[in-house]
């Protein structure tokens, strides 16, 4: 009977959710700017695409590089280097655009020097850092994660602050 099945399914799902919750392990896309490694919560990452032609938009914010065509959708692209106020590097074969979607209707691309891997970190692996008012840069970082069995440190990006444009009050 349909109703029965539905009931059972709901129960099963809620059980699974509980188990996930207990693990608390999250995945991050590890990317790099120069030598430094950064991580973006994989839940926000829609896709990763290769560098492509960017159409400049006059009079836009300094770190917005322009617009690209992503499968028929026009989305803005920002440069993480410009955002961090470091010098821009020439684009090469490793340059990638990480498409991040904070809200369903508002994807944005972030240009990074390269994307390395996906790492799993539990909350224990991440040392939170407080926002330092004097350090502009610190608001872009939530904490620093240590990847197990290696001495790699990954700065977890505060993606909301990185994107930095308040779109919540737009419709």
């Amino acid at each position, binding site marked *: 009977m349909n*109703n029965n099945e539905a009931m059972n399914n709901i129960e099963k799902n809620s059980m699974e959710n509980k188990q996930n919750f207990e693990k608390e392990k999250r995945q991050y896309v590890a990317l790099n700017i120069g030598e430094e490694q950064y991580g973006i919560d994989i839940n926000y990452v829609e896709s990763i695409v290769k560098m492509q032609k960017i*159409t400049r938009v006059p*009079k836009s914010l300094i770190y*917005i590089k322009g*617009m690209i065509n992503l499968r028929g959708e*026009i989305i803005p692209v920002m440069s993480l280097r410009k955002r961090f106020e470091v010098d821009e590097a020439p684009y090469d074969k490793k340059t990638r655009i990480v498409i991040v979607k904070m809200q369903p209707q508002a994807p944005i691309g972030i240009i990074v020097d390269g994307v390395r891997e996906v790492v799993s970190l539990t909350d224990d692996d991440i040392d939170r850092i407080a926002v330092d008012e004097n350090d502009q840069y610190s608001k872009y970082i939530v904490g620093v994660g240590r990847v197990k069995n290696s001495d790699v440190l990954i700065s977890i990006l505060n993606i909301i602050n990185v994107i930095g444009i308040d779109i919540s009050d*737009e419709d």
Partner: protein
Amino acid sequence: MDVSQYLDIFIDETKEHLQNLNEQILIIEKEPENSDTINEIFRAAHSLKGMAGTMEYKRMQKLTHQMENVFSEIRIGNMKVEPALVDILFQCLDALENYLEIISETGAEGENENREILDKLDEILNGNNKIQTKAGSQINEKKAENQMAEKKMTNLSEKNISSSEEIYKQFVYSDDERQMIEEAIESGLNVYAFTISIEETCLLKSARSFLVFKKVSSLGKIIKTNPSSQDIEDEKFDLDFSIMVISKEPFEKIKKAIKKVSEIKKVVGEKIGTIPEINLNIAQEELNDLNRTEGEKDNSENIGGQIEDTKDKNHNGKESYNKSGRLNEKSKEGISQKDKSCNEKGHEDKSRDDHTSDKREGRNNSKKHIAGRSVRVDIEKLDVLMNLVSELIIVKNGLASQKTKSMVTDLNTFNEQVEYLERVTAGIRESVMNARMMPIETVTQKFPRMIRDLTKKLGKDMELYITGEDTELDRTVIDEIGDPIMHLLRNSADHGLETPKIRAKRGKPKTGTIRLDAYQDGNSVVIEVSDDGNGIDIEAVKNKAVENGKITKEEADIMSDKEAIDLLFTPSFSTAKEVSDISGRGVGLDVVKTKIESLGGEIEVRTKLGEGSTFVIKLPLTLAIIQALMVDIGNEKYAISLANIQTIESIQKKDIKHMQDKEIVNIRDKVIPLIRLSKILDIERETDDENITVIIARKGDRFAGFVVDNLIGQQEIVIKSLGKYMSNISRIIGGATILGDGEVALILDINTLM
């Protein structure tokens, strides 16, 4: 209970009902005896009450309940429609609209009790009772008659329903289910079976049944439904369905819970102590038998539905299928016989009969009404479709650009393909566009009510004539155009039309005329708002402008009439209040103009002093796909809408003259300012050619020349928004589009530079 997922439907439906009520009450104000309309109003009020109740909006429910009471009095004939009542009813509608507005913003109905209106309704109801007693025996007799008739009818309808009561007894049990029921009964749980009948007028049967399921599920476990839950979900049932429930709760509690769902007509059911001792096959046969006998009894409309059910189950047996087919015919005869008997019965009491037939007619009417209206399509779905179409166009453009490059061989087939693709994309585009189109009626239907209110408020007699309500516009335009038109209508009513005294003096008819005409003109839609009032006093406008310091006396003297009228659209003019003839003539007109221009349209005024004025709004049919001119500026590509472009000129550098730091050029005796797009768009360019290409654009009577480097050609482009992150950049970027090679090009809105 969580009903939030129905909030959207609720809001939509309530809007429709309120609109319907508005229209019907306007009719009834003119024809107080129109029983069709009264019934329609009663039904709308009733559904509103039910919906508000389901959504647990208590205040709204209370108000609609009281309205319904009033209408039921009117319907029975105990009360007459009077102007004072109509006024209060309109107040009710306004109050309901307020509730709805708050609901759509916050999800809750707010705190406003609308005590005053409720009291007024009470007064009317009570006052009516007094009158009624005075009116004496005649009415009472009639009422008694009515009551008797009602009893008869209920008897009759109960008889009709008796067969539907049996439906739940026709459950066919599988072994599993039998076991489940057995176990439940053994463990001390109750097993109930219900048959639930839904009102004939219900539009969302599946939603109602879903609500029933939800309510029942909160009290127990539904183990079985007839027809299957899938069929119920797909609305594959007539008016009733049956469920079997295992629950700890008492029978009455569940029955009550089901009854609480609105538009549920009847709930019958019983507690099942033992399982009916039948197995599947026997049950099937018994079912057929049952139908046969019932078909012969021909006592119910429901038979048709039942047989449909059996038909579904009998797919495996051809013989029985035929049997039920025959049965179907039989039952049809039965129904017609029943109708006859119903009519006979009806003769016994005329008023009751009138009522039922009214109801039946009314139902047909309302069905027609709804079918003709709109199919609700999620705009996002259309956007997806739109996206696909745009991609198709991109492919087409890509192919077209390939054509010139490498495809030398077999060029004919290739061309054919491209042409074919063009035909397809054109077709798809048109159909998607059409799906996005809505008749302007959705906006205009609220205006008659507004004019009525203004008539009372201003003490001027006026009549609104609307033509071309079926003219269609893009959904995005429709959503935006309502306010500007309303503004213009108000202007016409308030400031255009003269007072009755002056009208009489001028020999004009006492009732002023305001017209709203919409029609399609080529690729645009024209909306005209006109009145036969005073017209615009151009001298008064000029004087006012001089007074305000907007222009000098000398400027005013040489100003053309058209320029003077344009002054009305300037922002600061809206404060004009003293000069009575034109007072407020400019109120908000600048807002109207800005709105219309943001929709890509334009507005102009034709007026003749003493005879009236006409505001003409011209809007593009659609905003999503436009014809554009592609240009190079530096090494960037931009699109400019062809609609803005007047001509394209090639100009020699030496012809450019300078005036106050500005470059101007004289083309065919017209002085046109030049605008260097490269400067505005921060594009670096090295060369400065001897010959420059200038795009001459026109906005109203103003011209400007835009300097570009190179023309690429004309192209059909799909406008895409730049998205939320880019919403606060310069207004000159009107959007973006994807070119044939997949590249993004920005669309320049050169209107904003003029």
